[in-house]
Structure formats: C-alpha cells, structure tokens
C-alpha cells in the first residue's frame, strides 16, 4: 500500500522521476486519448516489470548484466507490438486515437526505466510488479489530469509565444511544483 502511494504520488514517474515525458506531452491533447494511452501503458508497464524481473534473474545467474538493457528492451518491444496488433484488431477506435503513439510506448522511458530501476533497487518479484503497476498508475493519473487540463486550456487566451507546447510545459512545471508538496511524505 505504502509503496503504491509512494510510486503513484510521492515519486511520480513523470513529475518527480522525470520519465515518460514524450507521451506525457504528446498524447495529452485530448482526454480521451490520454485515458487510452494511460490504459495501454499500464498494461504494458506492469507486464514489462514482471517479465523483465524474470529475465533479470536469468541474467544475474549467468553473470550477463551487460545484456540487461538489450534484453529488457526486446521484451518490451515484443509486448508493445503484440498489444498494438491486438488493439488494432479489436478496437479500431482506440487504435486511431492512440495513433502513432502506441509504437512509441516502446520508447517511453518509463517503460524501460522502471524495470531498470527494479533491477537496480533489487526489488523482489512482487515489489517489481507493484512498482511497475504503481508507476503506470501514476503516469496514467497525471496524463489524464493533464489531458483534461489541456482541453480546458484550449479555450484560454494564451499569449502568442506561449501557445501550444510552451503553455503545456509551463502547466507541467506547475504540476510538478504542486507535486513537490508530496516530498517527504513517505520516509
């Protein structure tokens, strides 16, 4: 429970660990897309955290740590592409909303970063899963809130130089400022 709170809020992947920013900025223009991306990422990330734990055990046993990044990313790429194909087939609407971003889940730092952190912090299997799931939840939460915010901001009278990405980043800055408040919440 505590580790969940910690990963979702206190050490939020996006705002505190600064991982997964490209989809955070890219897929948050519409709430609907944000929800879809959040769901897809949650699925992939949890799966990636679990399976990369297993592979990591294998690598550790064989003294092959230098293969960590490579093997993790291969697993992730596999999971992502599989998910992509399934979504493409089963839900064309979702597929269209997520558009080019689904393959980009592979290049979502968080999806590689979390398994790497799991390995670095020597988490157990259960911890790895919770860590992965919690991070993904944190990602989705922020993504969704941000998506709703950006929809609202579409109507705001933003000064010309700040229109578009600049104001989105500025909003992210203030969100991250707000999340500083969670600092030191779990010790």
């Amino acid at each position, binding site marked *: 429970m505590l580790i969940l709170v910690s990963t979702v809020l206190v050490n939020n992947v996006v705002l505190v660990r600064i991982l997964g920013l490209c989809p955070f*900025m*890219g897929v948050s223009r519409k709430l609907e897309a944000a929800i879809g991306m959040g769901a897809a990422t949650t699925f992939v990330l949890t799966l990636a955290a679990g399976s990369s734990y297993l592979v990591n055990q294998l690598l550790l046993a064989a003294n092959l740590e230098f293969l960590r990044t490579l093997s993790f990313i291969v697993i992730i790429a*596999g999971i992502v592409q599989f998910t992509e194909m399934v979504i493409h087939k089963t839900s064309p609407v979702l597929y269209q909303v997520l558009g080019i971003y689904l393959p980009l889940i*592979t290049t979502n730092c968080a999806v590689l970063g979390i398994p790497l952190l799991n390995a670095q912090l020597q988490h157990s299997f259960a911890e790895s899963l919770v860590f992965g799931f919690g991070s993904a939840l944190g990602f989705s939460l922020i993504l969704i809130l941000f998506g709703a915010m950006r929809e609202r901001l579409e109507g705001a009278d933003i000064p010309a130089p700040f229109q578009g990405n*600049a104001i989105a980043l500025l909003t992210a*800055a203030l969100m991250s400022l707000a999340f*500083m408040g969670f600092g030191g919440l779990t010790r």
Partner: protein
Amino acid sequence: MSNTPSVWQDIARKGLWQQNAGLVQLLGLCPVLAISNNVVNALALGLATTLVTALSSATVSSVRHWVPHTIRNPVFIMIIASLVTCVDLAMNAWLHELYLVLGIFIPLITTNCIVMARAEAFASRQPVREAAWDGAMMGLGLTGVLVALGALRELLGKGTLLAGADKLLGPAGQQLTLHLAGADYQFLLMLLPPGAFLGLALLIAGKNVLDARARQRAAAATYPAPDAEASPAP
C-alpha cells in the same frame, strides 16, 4: 544516389532548428529535463545521445531492406539498445565520474524517443549517409537544447556556468567554471524538476518569438505593406 548540398543543409536546418527534437517535436524530453541542471552534464549526455542517434540511424538505414515490417520495431530498438549499451560500458570505463552523474539516463538513451523516432521516420526510408547525417543533426539539435537549458538552469539556479567541467575535461576544466553571482546565491526552483519544465517552456516560447519575428520579416519582405513601414517597430 547523389544529393545536392542543399539537401544536407535542409536536413541540418531541420535537425538543428525547424524540427528540433526538444523544442518542436518534444521528443527525447526525459534526459533533457532530468540532466539539464548544469551545462556540463547536459553537454555530456547530449554528445552521448548524438553519437547513438547518428550510429543507430546509419545502422538502421543500412539494414532497412532486410527487416520485415512486422518486426521493424524490435529490430530497430535492438540495434539502438546494443549501441547504447556499448556507449554505456565505454563511459563507465573511461568517463566514470560523469557516468555516475548521468546514472540511469545513459541506458535510457535507448528509449530516448528521438532516437527511435528518427530511426522510424527517417533512417528506415533513406540511404545511409543521409540517415547518419540526419541522426547527427537531430542529436546536435537536442544537445543544443540540453546545453541551453543547462545553462539557463545553472545560471538562474546557482549563479554559475560550467561548474564541474573537470568531469568532462579533467582537472583543467575547473578553471572554466564561471561564478556569476554571490557564493550563497541559490534559486532552488530552477534546479528542481519544476525548473526544468519551466526552463524548457521559456526556451520554446523564445523560439516562438524568434520564429514569429522571422515570419514577420519574411512577410514584410514579400509584400512591403505601407503600414508596416509606417508603424514604428516595437
């Protein structure tokens, strides 16, 4: 296939400015935001990324004909991952101090979106030399943003520039550090995550202003509107 010099220039202009990864495409943001609290780290990571981007673009381009569509992604990412791991190991061996600072963000170059995006969007469709050049320019564009953001944050946050240059350049680098404010000057916001977002937002806004100016000038040049002449420039 041979290309006129303008094609190279075009690629360079796109990579460095028009389609700049950090400012326009907003790809590769994580390292940009996480490792930009001083110039030296930013520069180091930027160069490492550039290296990987150029190499991986070249490699992807050279194998592009043998990769079936369905496994395009895994193959590309595998190429990138192995290149990254090589860079990671090399830095660990020969630039160890910097390696410690950059931490998890070196393996994460793998997932640096810009690397993959270039592999997908450009390298998988273009000949090797163009691809390598594009990768290098994109990487340099990102490095530029990293350094600018690093400078901004370091300057506003700590009042210094190039602190820790010795990590990159050896002891001689220490002399390079500039102290531009009192020793106890500190504005933490800029050094913390919010400052990273804020700094990048300001850079993008700055670019927008420059672009708008350029557009205005271009427009004024094509249609020399009388009122544009008459009204004094602000």
